[in-house]
């Protein structure tokens, strides 16, 4: 009998504001420890929190982008627990009435369709500080620069049925967040963190007991952790045991999870309304204004690229991974409008491939869209072959010489003069009399041999179309 996997995800996403959620401290990453704190985010007695307006707007924008309902009145609560990186002894969060409720994300399915995954809510809260244990014996070190940085927690419905669906959801959400510009969403910097609630059941039966997997900071680890946990649970049940509801910590080095039961016991958060903050009220007009300023979303952009530029869904997907890359592509097409598909091929395969190899970002590309367009124009007007263009492109990545100067210097200008091509062909024929005889005797396959020889003799500069045409003519004899 088969097992069905049930997964729900909680994503903590750092909102990219200049200042913290409730005070005027900087949120800049990488500052000297404890240099970005004040009495509010240190939890000193008598300090009052005041909410950051941009954090509110960005949470609303995210809610609108997932087709959620925005609560015009929402509330804040205290989530109480003791930990040295939480100076107040509680985290300000939204429990009873969050800012955003409902919504969904559509993920592509293997059969080319879409699956809709529900989102329960998005609430605002503040981050804790950072604890460091490594290399320390009897102590831990605490940096509170991150204490009070605004987060949104995006909670999904338990709608995912495999690790792959969970990853597809996370990638889609991650991309959306970056498009909206509401978070850097850099996983290595902890700006996009995921906890997974996982259970298994026989199809059609009620949900099984779930466990919560924590501490997964890359898509690869999340997939591994979910797959590990699913197998662990199935094994327990098939051996006649019962899954215990608990939090488990993923160890990406050992590739296994372990129970956090010690922490579990203390987890009675005793939520209660935050007395220091009156309700958060936003007007429908404010929500509408945020909606009006919403950028084109990845899904819309992908579809537009397919219809407007005739791209394959794969290319459209690659080029719309970030707003920046979509904009880069569109300025390339604007400068080389003759062939949007050629633009897509060159950008996706040649440019992004080379940048990736060099460990560079599109923003660090040594070749601008305008310059790449110049090269594509030279392919378009038959000055160079597509193959020679790759050599030119390699040179362009290293130098700022003009495209035409590089073509000239490398002697790659395509030969489309039939006299010159005929001369090369005749030379090749003279050097290979046996093959000429064979071809004339009916061995058509030798055509490929002649094309290769002529291209080689011309060092790739002969126009391939013309070589074919002239070879057919001259080989006839």
């Amino acid at each position, binding site marked *: 009998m088969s097992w069905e996997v049930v997964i729900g995800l909680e994503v903590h996403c750092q909102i990219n*504001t200049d200042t913290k959620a409730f005070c005027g*401290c900087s949120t800049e990453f990488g500052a000297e420890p404890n240099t970005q704190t004040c009495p509010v985010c240190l939890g000193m007695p008598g300090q009052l929190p005041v909410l950051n307006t941009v954090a509110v707007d960005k949470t609303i924008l995210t809610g609108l982008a997932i087709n959620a309902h925005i609560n015009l009145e929402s509330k804040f609560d205290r989530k109480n627990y003791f930990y040295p990186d939480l100076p107040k002894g509680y985290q300000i969060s939204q429990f009873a009435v969050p800012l955003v409720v409902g919504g969904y994300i559509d993920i592509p399915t293997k059969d080319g369709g879409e699956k809709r995954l529900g989102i329960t809510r998005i609430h605002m809260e503040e981050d804790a500080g950072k604890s460091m244990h490594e290399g320390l014996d009897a102590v831990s070190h605490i940096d509170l620069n991150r204490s009070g940085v605004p987060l949104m927690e995006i909670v999904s419905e338990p709608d995912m049925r495999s690790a792959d669906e969970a990853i597809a959801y996370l990638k889609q959400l991650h991309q959306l967040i970056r498009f909206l510009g509401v978070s850097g969403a850099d996983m290595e910097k902890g700006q996009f963190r995921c906890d997974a609630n996982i259970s298994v059941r026989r199809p059609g039966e009620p949900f099984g007991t779930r466990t919560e997997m924590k501490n997964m900071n890359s898509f690869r680890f999340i997939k591994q952790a979910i797959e590990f946990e699913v197998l662990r649970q199935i094994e327990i049940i098939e051996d006649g045991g019962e899954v215990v509801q608990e939090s488990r910590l993923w160890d990406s080095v050992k590739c296994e999870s372990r129970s956090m039961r010690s922490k579990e016991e203390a987890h009675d958060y005793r939520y209660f309304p935050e007395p220091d903050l009156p309700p958060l009220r936003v007007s429908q007009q404010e929500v509408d204004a945020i909606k009006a300023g919403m950028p084109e979303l990845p899904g819309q952009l992908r579809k537009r690229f397919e219809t407007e530029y005739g791209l394959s869904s794969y290319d459209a997907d690659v080029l719309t991974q970030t707003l920046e890359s979509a904009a880069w592509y569109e300025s390339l097409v604007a400068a080389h409008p003759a062939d949007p598909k050629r633009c897509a091929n060159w950008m996706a395969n040649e440019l992004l491939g080379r940048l990736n190899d060099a460990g560079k970002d599109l923003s660090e590309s040594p070749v601008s869209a305008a310059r790449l367009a110049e090269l594509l124009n030279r392919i378009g007007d038959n000055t160079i072959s597509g193959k020679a263009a790759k050599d030119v492109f390699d040179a362009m990545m290293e130098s700022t010489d003009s495209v035409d100067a590089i073509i000239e210097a490398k002697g790659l200008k395509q030969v489309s003069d039939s006299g010159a091509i005929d001369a090369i062909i005749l030379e090749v024929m003279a050097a290979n009399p046996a093959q000429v005889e064979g071809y004339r005797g009916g061995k058509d396959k030798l055509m490929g041999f002649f094309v290769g020889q002529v291209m080689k003799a011309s060092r790739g500069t002969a126009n391939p179309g013309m070589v074919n045409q002239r070879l057919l003519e001259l080989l006839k004899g």
Partner: protein
Amino acid sequence: MEIDVRKVAMLSRIRLTDDEAAELGPQLSSILGYVEQLGKVDTDGVPPTAHPHDAAMPLRANVVTNGNRREELQAPAPKTESGLYVVPKVIE
């Protein structure tokens, strides 16, 4: 309403002697019992009160107003090292 005074003390990180626990348990239970009377009020159709003042929340502009005050702010800490707070080892 019975209250588990040991659990409450543990959650609040307050150490109680047995005598204190025996004394405080019934006291806390009776306080909760007193407040529980509110449950008898018919609140159908009454919107929940989120805050005693019927005020909307004022918001803060997203502008950095605080500088580095580490030295001053860390002065009361029992122990620091290289700008970090030093606490007894915590690891999960």
